[in-house]
């Protein structure tokens, strides 16, 4: 607990340094801190991908992570739900806590961690089965067998992702038949059916048309009251539109983080300014 309090302090300190104010309005108390990343470095083999990242994620906020390619945004995201474990080259130093518990502790039940921290990938990947089975996959592997309960969760997930009305009559059709935008919303529904606490989105709109993108962003706005949302995006306009707070990554370093409106209007770091005004990246 002591440790946790320290992290709160250092995080606010950092925010204060970068944007000049302590943002009490968005972050009412230390309790709302969902994830605390503390001097976290990630390596693939010898290569250092993330360099001593310090960042907190609060419940009820939408945090956008921006930065050019190869700046470690995706690696950061995948560190939060331990998806990097799949890569045998991966190693790390530092700490990430989720509700005060170290997620890299060896007693952590990784499948249940991944259920609580859901992830949507850049490209929609429907599993080769029906829409229903796709959305029911998470609840079903978690051990829910009751058909009625699964029906409820599937409906709930699809409704939250604004897809229910479009697919309610064809839940048993192959998910591959959906359009790209629908597939991505189905992937969102698939994660939401698990009712996670944190939602990680890795450039979820990179392959979508503007209308589908708008639908996803609408869904995110609707969802933010219940989840902490971390949105990695290459699109600075999207970050400005669809987030409360923005963090700028460059070459594996966190350059600055702060309220989106302030970061985009008066960034403190020259590199941030260059990036958001389109001088590089």
């Amino acid at each position, binding site marked *: 607990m002591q440790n946790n309090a320290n992290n709160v302090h250092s995080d606010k300190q950092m925010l204060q340094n970068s944007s000049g104010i302590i943002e009490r309005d968005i972050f009412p108390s230390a309790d709302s801190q969902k994830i605390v990343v503390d001097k976290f470095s990630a390596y693939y083999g010898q290569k250092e991908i993330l360099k001593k990242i310090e960042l907190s994620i609060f419940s009820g906020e939408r945090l956008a992570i921006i930065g050019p390619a190869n700046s470690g945004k995706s690696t950061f995201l995948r560190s939060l739900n331990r*998806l990097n474990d*799949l890569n045998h080259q991966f190693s790390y130093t530092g700490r990430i806590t989720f509700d005060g518990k170290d997620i890299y502790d060896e007693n952590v039940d990784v*499948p249940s961690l*991944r259920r609580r921290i859901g992830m949507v990938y850049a490209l929609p990947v429907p*599993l080769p*089965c029906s829409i229903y089975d796709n959305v029911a*996959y*998470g609840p079903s*592997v978690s051990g829910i067998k009751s058909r009625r309960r699964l029906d409820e969760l599937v409906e709930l997930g699809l409704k939250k992702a604004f897809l229910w009305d479009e697919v309610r009559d064809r839940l048993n059709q192959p998910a591959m038949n959906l359009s790209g935008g629908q597939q991505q919303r189905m992937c969102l529904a698939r994660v939401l059916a698990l009712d996670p606490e944190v939602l990680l989105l890795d450039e979820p709109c990179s392959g979508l048309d503007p209308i589908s993108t708008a639908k996803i962003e609408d869904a995110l706005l609707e969802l933010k009251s219940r989840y902490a949302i971390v949105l990695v995006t290459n699109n600075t306009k999207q970050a400005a539109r669809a987030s409360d707070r923005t963090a700028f990554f460059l070459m594996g370093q966190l350059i600055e983080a702060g309220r989106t409106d302030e970061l985009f209007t008066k960034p403190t770091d020259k590199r941030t300014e260059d990036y958001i005004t389109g001088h590089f990246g």
Partner: protein
Amino acid sequence: MKITPATSQRLVVAVLWLIAAITLFILLFIIAYIFVHGLGNVTCSFILESPRRMGRQGGILPMIVGTVYVAALAVLIAAPVGVLTTIFLTEYTREGKLTSFIRFGADCLAGIPSIIFGLFGFVFFVIVLGMGFSIISGALTLALMVLPTIIRTSEEAIRAVPQAYREVSYGLGSTQWQMVTRVVLKSALPGICTGIVLSIGRCVSETAAVMLTAGSALRMPCSPFESSRTLSLHFYILAREGISMENAYATASLLILAILGINVIAYLLMRRFVAKVT
């Protein structure tokens, strides 16, 4: 005379057509030749009766039963072992010395002539383990023989499953085994089935290995511990010892029909399965 690109294109197309036609012609010729000589003798009584006078008269029912017995047992043993080996190789170990050694072993096993498998089965199962000439000795020998086919085809099928499926499954909180059974095996099933069907075909048509292990008894097999003659071995003995060419061709016709049947049914099942999931 200069050959223009257009001419060479036409030439190549003609040659390719010719070669494909020759291949198809030879296949059809063999099947037709055997059917012409044998199909006339395939009657209900031929299928449903036991052989008399060493197969000069009567039918081949015990051989049909024996063949089904041996092939089914062999595949029932080889398929789970092969698929589980493949899952271990592809999902549960990292690429390294051990996996390449196992893969190398499987490849060597695939290249060994079937008579050697027969000899091994004879020495090991029939004599050392004391199983005698029996269906189970034959099935175990055939299982060893088709194992590499099953491993190789399943491996290709499992490797073709996109890595993204695995990430999605993990991301939704599955364990590794759930991921393997619900996503990987399901997507790879058509490919795995192809390997299994190929193995059934090889088991049904194998002669040398079963001759040395399952024996050549003519009576109806009652248990897997009895000796039985398979269809292909029956054909071989009838033809080799000049007992009855008519019945040899009839047996061969039936064998070819069975293999064609297995392949067609497997193809149809697979197409239905693929249509259902994609």
